């Protein structure tokens, strides 16, 4: 029984207990812990933003030789976001927003097409080498049927009658199995985290076991 003597471990243990007090009911201790968490993580993100981005990507290239004066333009565009603070110039924020959101949209289109659609279609092709054994052929056909039925389930341009309705029913079966698996894994991941916290309290803090 060697209770930890480190002030840090005690701090972490107290905060952990304050968050778990929410399980009893929403109380001031929980709200205190949550606000500390919100503030600290916002402060942490700002520090990372400062050291990993603003200093190496903006301050140094601009103010240290060789000066990259072209950085003035993105900074000007950035300053336009301050327009929102005044009613008169609030339309100014549309420009940096348009640049950022429009730019990312253009950037994401080919990546989405490649990894979310073409890669999935390519993987769905049943190559003969998948038919090595009886079991793998059944699996290959089942996977193909599952994909087919799932896409039919999410098809909205046709009424669900006779054959079409049946395919959708098969689709929902596959979808529910996939959701069941996701459900099981989420439970496992969250319980692992709970075990991690309990091990911290029992082992690192109270020193039992």
């Amino acid at each position: 029984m060697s209770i930890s003597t480190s002030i840090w471990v005690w701090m972490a243990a107290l905060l952990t207990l304050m968050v778990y007090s929410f399980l009893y009911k929403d109380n001031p201790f929980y709200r205190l812990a949550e606000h500390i968490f919100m503030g600290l993580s916002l402060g942490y993100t700002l520090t990372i933003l400062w050291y990993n981005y603003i200093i190496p990507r903006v301050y140094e290239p601009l103010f240290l030789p060789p000066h990259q004066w072209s950085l003035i333009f993105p900074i000007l565009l950035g300053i336009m976001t301050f327009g929102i603070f005044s009613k008169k110039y609030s339309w100014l924020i549309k420009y940096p927003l348009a640049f950022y959101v429009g730019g990312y949209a253009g950037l994401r289109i080919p990546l989405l097409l490649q990894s979310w659609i073409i890669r999935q279609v390519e993987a769905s092709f049943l190559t003969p080498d998948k038919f090595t054994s009886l079991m793998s052929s059944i699996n290959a056909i089942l996977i193909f049927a599952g994909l087919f039925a799932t896409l039919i389930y999410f098809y909205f341009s046709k009424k669900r009658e006779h054959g079409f309705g049946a395919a959708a029913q098969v689709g929902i079966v596959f979808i529910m199995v996939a959701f069941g698996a996701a459900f099981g894994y989420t439970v496992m991941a969250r319980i692992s985290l709970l075990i991690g916290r309990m091990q911290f309290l029992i082992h690192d803090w109270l020193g039992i076991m």
Partner: protein
Amino acid sequence: MILLLALAFSISAKDTPDDGGGSITVNVYNIPEGTARIELSRLEKGDMLYKEAGLIPIFKGECDDASVVDGIGYLYRGKAIAKDTFYIAEMEGFVTSSPQWFNKSRITVLIFLILFGSVVLTYIQLAKKNPEGLFIRKLPALDAIDEAVGRSTEMGKPVLFVPGLEGITDAGTLASLTILEMVGKKVAEYGSRVIHPNFDPIVMTTAQETLKTAFAEAGRPDAFNKDDVFYLTYEQFGFAAGVDGIMLRERPGAIFLQGYFYAESLILAETGYSIGAIQIAGTNATTQLPFFVAACDYVLLGEEMFAASAYISREPRLLGSIKGSDLAKVVLLFMIGAGVIFGTIAGIAKQGGNPTYMQIFNKMLEFLAKGAK
């Protein structure tokens, strides 16, 4: 050790295609039996000596030398080292590397982009001209919404609508506002109340506008109470605890959980079930869908939420992408179906000693997988 210039073991090099230059692809052919390692060495134009340039993986017989400079000529020599002897392979002409302006391996993405893009845009134009013309099947959820609001007002209980935790730019939040409009109209007709707690101030003001117009269109502009749409808090679990409190106090007969939810979805759905309300959820947060399906009476799964809002609002932009995606799904299904049938025929033909179909099929597969690198 004898220096044996094996005729069979040979080497070739070419500028690496579809790249930004500065790289040469080196291939070795018919690697002798028992080779342990293949050492690669390089001679720069104007130099006298070959310098060491890494290894060529035996199982691939190919590697990219990325340490070359564009425009300079290079000669490569491969040395396959077996147990007690080694074999040398050399090239004749110099090779230089250069950048390309178009990456041919990404043609598949370009073709699909142009096709899908034009399909979506044409549907949007069609929808603008004649919104009713484009057919979207009536989702069963819309009947469930009617039934839920009806039963709730019969019992004289209010309706609770929770919009999720994301801001106004999230697709799920936008869809939830369209569904709110339909629920608002129903509630106005039945002369009941809809309570709308909020996590985001902008969503709150938009929801107030939506409900005001919904009540007005149902002919009951005075029945809308602005205070029923209010800002609760911006803390995740604080919001969930707050909404639970409203559920236990107001005892709504029907609860709508529509929008993008995080881990707090469980607390809401559980309390909603425990007070016996009919719960209709809808979210584009795939991680929360399993929990909603297990706890709620009805769930709109991801895309169904967007289809429902397109059905209600007939908004050309929404109709355009739903119809465009539907057509793309049909095309993809035919492609996969045709590929599977052709693949199995090619497989059978190959067993029967005729591999030509098989080569065509592999070529097709390779074409699709091109952009993967």
